[in-house]
């Protein structure tokens, strides 16, 4: 690796689809880069933040060095700091922001769940999940302020629990969870992001012979819509998540390996759903899930 080689990251952290441009740069980052210049980045949403974190962790694992983040715009630094991004110890970053400029953890800013690591060991992982749900319950009135439904908090508890358990049950690696409510124009978005850099959905089903699928994205779709499981006779988790997101008319985005699936549920029409399958994307380790609601 050529030392001090810098790569300027494009402003592609606005949504899960946008982040594909950064994933396409993955090889260059791993092989030729020691510094990632974020000067052009104007916004980072939670899913892209977790993907960047996983990319940094992969870099650390492959090279033994921490990728340096440079020229981080102040509002991006404030956000990443607020989300405990730097606490993970994956990156080295220029500490250029004065403490007085960092975002305070007042009740007003409690529209987030900071990044929490989900271990690949059952006991630690269960503790982390319980901790995430405990904090979520305390902050839910802020996080879900724009979504008025008596049961929405319980729906999200189910979703967090089901997806986080998949990390230690299936991925064979640890992962991260984060959540945030933010605004895009006049719309409010709540986004839950959970990701790992484990073996991914396709590899976890390698030893399961009787599941027929015609592409990796098709297998992800089957995991969402049927009760297939790579570990037991059948599994409920992702199906239950899909059923809840359908009820809430939300959006699921799952990326695993070189494939992704997005589901959209029509807000006005009942039983109207759309699945978008993509194959042959740039391979990215593990499985990452984004659950979003808009008001």
């Amino acid at each position, binding site marked *: 690796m050529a030392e001090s080689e810098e790569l300027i990251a494009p402003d592609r952290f606005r949504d899960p689809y946008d982040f594909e441009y950064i994933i396409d740069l993955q090889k260059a980052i791993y092989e030729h880069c020691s510094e990632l210049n974020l000067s052009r980045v104007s916004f980072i949403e939670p899913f892209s933040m977790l993907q960047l974190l996983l990319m940094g962790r992969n870099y650390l694992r492959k090279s033994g060095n921490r990728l340096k983040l440079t020229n981080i715009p102040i509002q991006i630094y404030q956000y990443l700091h607020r989300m405990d991004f730097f606490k993970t110890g994956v990156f080295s970053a220029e500490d250029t922001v004065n403490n007085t400029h960092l975002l305070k953890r007042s009740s007003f800013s409690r529209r987030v769940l900071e990044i929490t690591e989900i271990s690949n060991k059952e006991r630690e992982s269960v503790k982390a999940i319980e901790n995430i749900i405990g904090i979520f319950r305390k902050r839910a009135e802020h996080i879900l302020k724009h979504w008025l439904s008596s049961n929405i908090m319980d729906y999200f508890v189910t979703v967090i629990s089901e997806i986080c358990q998949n990390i230690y049950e299936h991925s064979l690696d640890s992962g991260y969870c984060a959540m945030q409510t933010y605004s895009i124009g006049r719309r409010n978005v709540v986004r839950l992001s959970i990701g790992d850099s484990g073996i991914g959905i396709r590899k976890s089903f390698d030893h399961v012979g009787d599941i027929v699928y015609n592409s990796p994205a098709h297998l992800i779709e089957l995991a969402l819509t049927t009760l297939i499981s790579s570990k037991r006779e059948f599994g409920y988790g992702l199906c*239950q998540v899909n059923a809840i997101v359908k009820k809430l008319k939300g959006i699921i985005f799952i990326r695993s390996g070189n494939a992704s699936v997005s589901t959209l549920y029509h807000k006005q029409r009942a039983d109207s759903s759309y699945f978008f399958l993509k194959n042959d994307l740039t391979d990215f380790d593990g499985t990452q899930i984004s659950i979003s609601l808009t008001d």
Partner: protein
Amino acid sequence: MIINMYSLGERLGCSLPDLITRPAGRSVYGYLNSALNDLEDGGTMVLDFSGVKVIDSSFIDEMFVKILLEARKSSKVFYIKLKNFSEIAEININLVLRSYSLHKNKKIVVITENICHNNAFFIGPLSDEEKDIVEFLRINKSATTEDVSRFSGLPTREAEMILEELHAARAVRKDKAGNFLSV
């Protein structure tokens, strides 16, 4: 026997107000399974979920499915009944029981004290005829096969088969005289 699931969860160190994850389900199942020793033959274990909010599918798979299967196969006859569960708990229990029943071709249902979304007092996959019979017994408390046959319009043999299947699933009781009763 009434088990307060919130207090039990508290005692076992579960993350209340939710009953989630497989390890928590396993430890609650372990407790309930040993508590069955204190239940008389033909007794009902009522699981009271007052104060509990979410019960996730992993917990349900480790606890509910196992205890309901135990009720089906145990030489000691016992019944399980739920009360005071939340809406999301009902949704999650329903999904797991329906999925299990579909895949294993073995019906598992659970009787409830509260009315459910299916406008009846059980969670799980019962046919319309089975649902009507369970409801008939709930209202009338006790009935013979002939009573059920007259009520449903089914031939006696068919009514008997359905009642026996419902009894095997522990969705209805059966006394020594052969009468069927509500759980």
